[in-house]
């Protein structure tokens, strides 16, 4: 079912913070309606790379991006592209669940409201919470504060919030690292369900999670120059049983990093 080609592509993507290069020359194809994992040791630029896809790096004044990021052929860093427009299509879930200090309903409704949504907000909220596998647990207390939920529930709320604006891609930056193992497995199951309708990119420290959850895996690494680069990219099944590059093998067998 890859007949429509990759949904996101990077070509020669490099990221600088002032003059220091953080990530160099990444060429990556992100498959449509699949889960792609980005793994690598700390400081290799995984999060930096991820944030290029929804131009969140723009929020850091010293960050500068070179190269192209193509979203269905459109260069996200082109001249007349508005970053806020991109973020409706490419959503993000963060490492620590960050629901706004508002009610559960208002959290999910936030995205549609600020984007001038004209239809039924109630429907959108319900649909998003259902899709995030949270509806059953909160349908009787939508007005309760979002902060009264458990960690795992809060993260699913953040996913529902992201879904409410109908993105096509969901970026996840270590979404389970602040959660307990049960909550983690719940989120992983949710991810697999969501991948039928959305393309997902997940950055993770957890090798087993990447192996469990992703269809494709990209391995990033740093060398002495402290610049992150792409070492290997392929089907997860292959990367985790028989990677091509010995550096990839050294990392996933825990022999370094």
């Amino acid at each position, binding site marked *: 079912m890859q007949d429509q080609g990759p949904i996101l592509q990077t070509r020669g993507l490099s990221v600088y913070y002032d003059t220091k290069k953080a990530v160099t020359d990444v060429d990556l194809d992100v498959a449509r309606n699949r889960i792609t994992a980005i793994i690598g040791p700390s400081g290799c630029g995984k999060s930096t790379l991820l944030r290029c896809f*929804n131009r*969140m790096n723009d*929020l850091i*004044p010293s960050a500068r991006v070179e190269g192209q990021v193509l979203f269905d052929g459109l260069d996200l860093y082109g001249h007349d592209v508005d970053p*806020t*427009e991109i*973020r*409706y299509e490419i*959503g*993000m879930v*963060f490492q*620590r669940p*960050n*629901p*706004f*200090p*508002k009610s559960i309903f208002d959290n999910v409704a*936030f*995205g549609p409201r*600020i*984007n001038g949504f004209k239809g039924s907000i109630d429907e959108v909220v319900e649909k998003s919470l259902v899709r995030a596998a949270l509806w059953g647990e909160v349908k009787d207390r939508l007005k309760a*504060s979002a*902060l009264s939920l458990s960690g795992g529930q809060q993260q699913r709320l*953040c996913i529902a*919030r*992201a879904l409410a*604006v109908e993105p096509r891609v969901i970026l996840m930056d270590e979404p389970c690292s602040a959660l307990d193992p049960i909550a983690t497995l719940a989120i992983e199951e949710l991810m697999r369900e969501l991948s039928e309708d959305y393309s997902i990119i997940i950055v993770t420290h957890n090798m087993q999670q990447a192996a469990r959850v992703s269809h494709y895996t990209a391995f990033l690494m740093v060398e002495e120059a402290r610049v992150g680069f792409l070492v290997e990219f392929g089907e997860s099944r292959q990367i985790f049983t028989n990677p091509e590059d010995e550096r990839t093998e050294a990392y996933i067998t825990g022999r370094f990093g």
Partner: protein
Amino acid sequence: MAVIPQTEFQRRRARRKWMGRAFHAMCLLSVCIALGMLAVLLAYLLIQGITGISWSFLTGFASRHPEQAGIKAAILGSIYVVVVAGLVSFTLGVATAVYLEEYAARSKFAKIAKINIANLAGVPSIVYGILGLQIFVHSLHLGKSVLAGGFTLALLVLPIVIVAAGEAVRAVPPSFREGSYALGATRWQVIWHIVFPLAFPGILTGVILAVSRAIGETAPLIAMGALTFVPFSPDSPLSRFTVLPIQIFNWTSRPQEGFQEAAAAGIIVLLVILLMMNAGAVILRNRFQNKWD
């Protein structure tokens, strides 16, 4: 095998305990002294002035005769001036803080601006009075009016509001900002929907501090032309006025015993108004804070 022999441990524990208790006692003593002094002051005030408080006192105007002294003009003047000062400093202060913390954050301009604002807080208040006289009274032709007085005090307390609002805005966790940007919010939307509501309690704290300061200011208002003897209520923003501290000061400088009583009564009134304003602001702040928990 123990690295440090037991006997040494015993001694240390005892000494630490003793030090802990001594420190606790010292803190308690300081609190008692501070509160005690406050209690003494309040008691003295109440004793001196409570008899002076009467309906005629509150609704009458000042007079040469102590038994007919009234505080109405001063109350109204204070309230009007402080309201003007509060509104102006709130608006300007919050806008400045938001600009410095959100739009120009981490820029060199912001750093310099913040240093200067902090310094302004330390400028003697009389300087603001002279400034107010020159700019508001003369150049802008507002005369020695309530409006001019309000603006003068607004300038005085502006640094307080800016600093408090700035801290409140800064205290909003970046994760909320990131979360809203990631949903496609523009900078303005992030500020209005997320930052502002969360920073509001902190901003209100700043306003409380500002208002408390403003209501007690005497020198700058005298310098820009507030009156000391006002036998009428200020009836428009451009009318002349007096404020409670000035009226109280005026009475304390008179020799008659009756005026001393009036002054004490006036102080009580001032404190009551101050408390009411603060209470109102605190209630407002709590309402906002509880919403978010």
